[in-house]
């Protein structure tokens, strides 16, 4: 067993685990943050996407010990209690989710996408950037709409702040 210490959603958290434990299982089972999901075995579906040191990663393909010392943001830490991040609000407004299982990964992906390419997103870019996230419910139509709406809203927010 190895002790793994992470900064998760701004708080330092530790747990003991086998070296073979995946980061996603560490987050779900040791830290009891079950918003991050597992939907495949082959690094494809993206239900497990979190941010590690500020970048989106698939937590199902990283060992918890690999992440030791990292800063992690999960879906639970994206917004303050009782509030929604603009991306979360846009998913609700545009019905970008149905069963909700892929949703945490989709939202974390969208936030990362806007962090990297915000203000320049088009439908084509969003669809291409979603290559690593599979949704079986929505046909992606409303997810694309939600990401574009959130991007526009956040760009307007940045402009207003300037």
């Amino acid at each position, binding site marked *: 067993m190895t002790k793994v210490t992470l900064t998760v959603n701004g708080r330092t958290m530790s747990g003991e685990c086998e070296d073979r434990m995946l980061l996603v299982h560490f987050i779900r089972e040791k830290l009891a943050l079950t*918003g991050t*999901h*597992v939907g495949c075995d082959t690094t494809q579906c993206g239900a497990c996407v979190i941010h590690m040191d500020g970048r989106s990663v698939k937590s199902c393909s990283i060992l918890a010990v690999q992440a030791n010392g990292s800063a992690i943001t999960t879906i639970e830490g994206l917004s303050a209690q009782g509030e929604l991040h603009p991306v979360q609000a846009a*998913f609700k407004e545009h019905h970008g989710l149905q069963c909700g299982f*892929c949703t945490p990964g989709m939202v974390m992906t969208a936030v990362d996408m806007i962090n990297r390419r915000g203000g320049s997103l088009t439908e084509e870019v969003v669809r291409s950037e*979603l290559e690593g996230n599979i949704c079986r419910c929505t*046909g*992606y139509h409303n997810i694309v709409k939600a990401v574009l709406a959130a991007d526009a809203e956040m760009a307007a927010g940045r402009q207003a702040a300037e």
Partner: protein
Amino acid sequence: MGVEGIGARVARKEDKRFLTGKGRYTDDMVVPGMKYACFVRSPHAHAKIRSIDVSAAKAMPGVIDVLDGKQLQADGIGNLICGWMVHSKDGSPMKMGAWRPLAHETVRYVGDAIAIVVADSSGEARDAAEAVEIDYEELPAVTEALSALEGGAPQLHPEAPGNLIFDWQIGDPEATDRAIASAAHVTEIELVNNRLSPNPMEPRATLGIYDEAEDHYTCYTTSQNPHVARLVMSAFYNVAPENKLRVIAPDVGGGFGSKIYIYPEEIVCLWASRKTGVPVKWTSDRTEAFLTDAHGRDHVSKVKMAFDADNRVIALKVDTVANLGAYMSLFSSAVPTYLYATLLSGQYAIPAIHANVRTVYTNTVPVDAYRGAGRPEATYLLERTMETAARELGVSPAELRRKNFIRTFPYQTPVIMNYDAGDYEASLDAAMQAADWAGFDSRRASAAARGKKRGIGMSCYIEACGIAPSAAVGSLGAGVGLWESAEVRVNAVGTIEVLTGSHSHGQGHETTFAQLVAGRLGVPIDSINIVHGDTDKVQMGMGTYGSRSGAVGMSAVVKALDKVEAKAKKIAAHLMEADEQDIVIENGELKIAGTDKTVPWFQVALAAYTAHNLPVGMEPGLKETAFYDPSNFTFPAGCYIAEVEVDPETGKTEIVQFVAADDFGNIINPMIVEGQVHGGLAQGIGQALLENVHYDPDTGQLLTASFMDYAMPRADDLPSFTLSHQNTPCPGNPLGIKGCGEAGAIGSPPALINAITDAIGHNRLTMPATPMKVWQALQPAL
């Protein structure tokens, strides 16, 4: 229409928990002392088990116990069943082979469960599962239905000689043959409906908890119908009597049919919890899901469609062979019969129809209902045939369809169904206009100038939803009734809980059901909670599948609300010293019509519970239950148009536009309905272009056992969709609604294939139309 009532685009009440990571799915459940299960599964498609040795596995670190099928049988756990009896045309009942939850004599598909390991961690459970030693005598395997029917094919079950489960027919064979003989033109085609894996993003999971002190079981499970699960596990599998078994389906991450069925894992984990004395959790991984979740479709059909000299369809003859896999899953017999052949009239007035369906065992995972369930197969068959006929007859596909549309309702088809309402031309016109069908030729020309082959195709579908009248399905062999229940509980301060037997796993019932109540009573939607998915809370229900929750489940809520309103009016009339006939309910108040005298809703509720001042003889409380059994199926219908560009160099198809025009009757929440259509379209497009379950025909190994090989539709495979709704309200239920969950998956595959065959200039193409297959179809014939 209020801002929160029926017809309003209300954002979903359930979204916040999903968006903030607070959804509660089965695999999120943790209980004290919980241990992890791993199933030992057959690596062979067909084999006899000579021996099972668990001694090494039991000695592995962390292992609590390893249990096998002999122990399960000794404890009296029964076989898995198919709940719908179908008889062959000779009158004999279907031939159901035994399906043991844990096989101990014969395994019949790769993934067949043999033993369960319970251990401290999932890793240790899997380590030990690999250490279970099984001595197999391998047998030859067969995976394709037509091959399984051949003489000399490997035989799966002694109960079913020749692997034939039943040989069933519907319609009038003689009248059909006579009409074909007299026809001016007969279109003949052979079609394969490809086998699919449902792949909800949440893999199946279950947590079995046995409480020795109470002799009581709790089963958390990823189910679309927890009450049916309890009923079947209790009545047939002998897990526990109903009063000793609580089934909870919490948040469920999609189902699409695959989570209707009761699988071996739920049963075995409950039993294992009793055997080991610890709660046992099992979570499928994706490869296990491919291996063990019921698949969908897998038909091979021969079709003859006969026309008179005026291009009217005078007969349809269909011969279908359906692959049901290694065992008969819960509703497997109904899918290629009563959910398929009864829809073969489509939107068309066809005087004579005959369909023959043979169902077959193969060494593959069981096949059962998957989004659309039988209706996509019927629609694909009819709409490809209709398109082919139009090309052969040299008439426009739209005009050929238009000429044959049913125009008067009710309409009795020759294959059981009685269509209650529809306006097929309205959807056809709307779709053609939205797609600018008339402007296609110029778009094709400009595509050709860019080196692309452009094609356009349509599909006019009908489906039967809201299943269905209990007496009718009972007469056709169903083992259960298909009504729904509802309970409306008004609390003392006027807030409301609605308990429903429908189950939401993405459909948004917590919003739409609340909209119904908010609209009726004029109370805030936030004062209404929808309760579902727990057999300890909701007394009984039939669950969610077949687009039935709106038409059947919400109708039950309407009936319960009628009773609640009637009692509330009596109380209000008593409080205001008025006649109850004069009381109306508006904006959260009960009012004497034509006056400004009102009593607020919460006050009526309070009066019902304080019971200080109720009409003489009235029982206190305000809570009513209703069971709703529909009088007929509902019949959503519509027209879909796909326009594609094929890259002749690579064979890759790009969908340049996809138009859907649907008649779902009245709509509760357009935003949610559109979402259902989008998702259905994606699955239909997936079937047409990407998805295919592929077993190695020689070894029976599943070659598409992960997303590395099974092509799931991704965002860049799909376009944005253009939707519209037409409305002929359903006369059969109080809300006039038909159901929208499956239409997209039903109507889209033939529209796409018709578009691609239009683009490539010939009809020799099977689903999925992968780049390689389309490229091959474009090469000069050798």
